[in-house]
């Protein structure tokens, strides 16, 4: 067991802590005309906090961050509203159907992510499949591609399985006798759901919310490919600093800020979740 734990910690050190330290080091350097394009902080400890000062002082970054949180929050909410009934339906379906249904949820992962997003471009574009059908029905075509609607479709479509699977895992372990007991004691179905099923599935819900919210907040590819230019999310700002400005320190500072926020926010969420849970059980 100790060996296993050592591997896990080594894994975390090599793939999480070290990269974060490297990014932090670049964030505290000066941009420079060189390969790579920043002046090294070490030796001599020439620390520059210019990059952090810039992202704190220019409202462009705060706006992008707020917009990212909004998009991630709304996407997570839609995923939850769509994913919970799906998970419940799969968990309650006859056993021989379950594996097939789960398979159908995961099946899209068998093809490449970029290919699926590009397929959505084909569906949503001005003369795409959806508009072809709309025109055949005698209606005027819709502008879908490069709008916020397209971006939300892309994000929800991509992250929905991450919501369904943890909730399903929780619901499938639910002791059916508890539901029967509640019903026997005279609770109508909606009350059984509200008083028994939902509270017992909450850990799965929190896991799903985190699994969707965190990657959605830093999402770059989907807003870039499906969203409009007004959707300047923090992921796209980071890309711009890195690629268009060649300003590695500022890009790294944004990455650090995003990481800090995404570590703090779930911690706060978990705390809220835990206190409400314990309050309800006491």
């Amino acid at each position, binding site marked *: *067991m100790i*060996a*296993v734990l050592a*591997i*896990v910690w080594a*894994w975390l050190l*090599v793939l999480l802590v070290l990269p974060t330290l490297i990014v932090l080091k670049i964030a505290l350097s000066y*941009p420079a*005309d*060189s*390969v*790579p*394009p920043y002046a090294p902080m070490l030796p001599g400890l020439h620390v520059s906090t210019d990059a952090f000062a810039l992202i704190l002082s*220019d409202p*462009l970054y705060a*706006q992008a961050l707020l917009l990212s949180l909004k998009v991630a929050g709304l996407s997570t909410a839609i995923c939850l509203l769509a994913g919970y009934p799906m998970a419940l339906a799969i968990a309650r379906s006859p056993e021989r159907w379950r594996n097939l249904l789960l398979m159908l949820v995961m099946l899209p992962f068998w093809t490449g992510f970029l290919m699926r997003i590009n397929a959505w471009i084909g569906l949503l*574009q*001005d*003369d795409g499949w959806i508009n072809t059908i709309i025109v055949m029905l005698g209606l005027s075509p819709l502008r879908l591609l*490069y709008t916020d609607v397209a971006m939300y479709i892309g994000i929800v479509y991509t992250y929905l399985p991450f919501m369904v699977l943890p909730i399903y895992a929780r619901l499938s372990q639910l002791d059916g006798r508890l539901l029967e007991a509640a019903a026997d004691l005279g609770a109508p179905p909606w009350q059984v759901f509200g008083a028994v099923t939902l509270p017992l599935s909450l850990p799965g819900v929190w896991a799903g919310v985190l699994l969707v919210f965190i990657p959605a907040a830093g999402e770059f590819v989907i807003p870039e490919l499906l969203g*409009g*230019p*007004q959707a*300047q999310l923090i992921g796209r*700002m980071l890309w*711009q600093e*890195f*690629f*268009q*400005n*060649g*300003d590695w320190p500022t890009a790294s500072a944004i990455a650090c800020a995003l990481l800090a926020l995404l570590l703090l926010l779930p911690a706060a969420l978990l705390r809220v979740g835990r206190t409400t849970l314990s309050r309800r059980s006491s």
Partner: protein
Amino acid sequence: MPAGESNVARSHCEERRHQAVSTRTHIWLLIASSLLAITAVLVAFVVPARAQERVLNIYNWTDYIDPAALERFQKETGITVHYDVFDSLETLEAKLLAGHSGYDVVVPSNEPTFSRLIKVGALAPIDRARVPNWKNLDPGLMRKVESSDPGNRYGAIYLWGTTGIGLIPDRVKRLAPDAPMDSWDLLFKQENAKRIAPCGITMMDSAIDVIPGVLKYLGKNPDSTDPTDLAAVERTLMGIRRYIRSFASGGTLEALAAGQTCLALDYSGDVIQAGARAAEAKHGITVRYVAPKEGAQLGFDMLAIPTDAEHKDAALMFIDFVLQPEVMAGITNTVRYANAVPASRPMIRPELLADTNIFPTPEQMAAFFTIGPVPQAAARERTRMWARFKAGH
């Protein structure tokens, strides 16, 4: 209950518990071994595999080569070519600035990328003794690039063109009959943009290509780094922001050819290629390129070799190969950009030679402008302005 049966039940129970324990250890072992496996794969990728075969890694713009030329080069030299494409200078620059890009021949535009790469030492000087066909290059055009590369030490002109307006003339005329078709007014004047918007306006997503053009349109120095000039550019762009349907880097060619957009700020050759594709498709769409009369930016794409290229010999062979008149003619015939090898002209298709959008007249050339390097701080200000423009606030 008979004693025997309860014994059986207990042993069943124990067996199940035993199974549960062993499943848990199995899961741990599974996690540990998969972590190990992934680490091994990562290590294998980080440690570069050095192939001993003769290869050449080329990094060029999208839709920017004659495939027959690549085939011929491979056949004549026995070198295997790995051909990779980018759709914006930023992508190319970011890869080269990070170092160890793995490419042996790259094709940056003279400004800002080529000059910046020279400045940071990311490009290797070209040994002209190894490129006998260098003599084929037009000295007049090479002189124009000296503002980016004094002495022409780091690159040979591959192709060149201008940045202007691509449009579908009949649709634009229907919506804005009185708008001038040969001026930046068509795009930058609010009243014109507003009328053309329903049919689609595409903006090239490239601050470095668009801002000098707007400065020139406003009668300013295209190299200006004055904040008040930049503010004027921002006002002009913000005035038409809501009439822009999409920002594109690459892909404008297809959108114009398919009639999904009616007006686009784009590179000359891309628009001319779009016109050729539209004509082939026979959907009744004609696409035309306009180099606005106020002045269009001249851009030269340079054949260059990164400092850390592993196959410099093959890279020099490729540059020499491309500078042959018949190879250059084939490339111009395919991608519809002008080259800098005058001896290729007799082999270029007459309709391309006659097109003044590809081979401008001396009077047109006089109205075109080239830009110089932009200091880093000013470049950052431009990019931030561009981000505000895209966001629309």
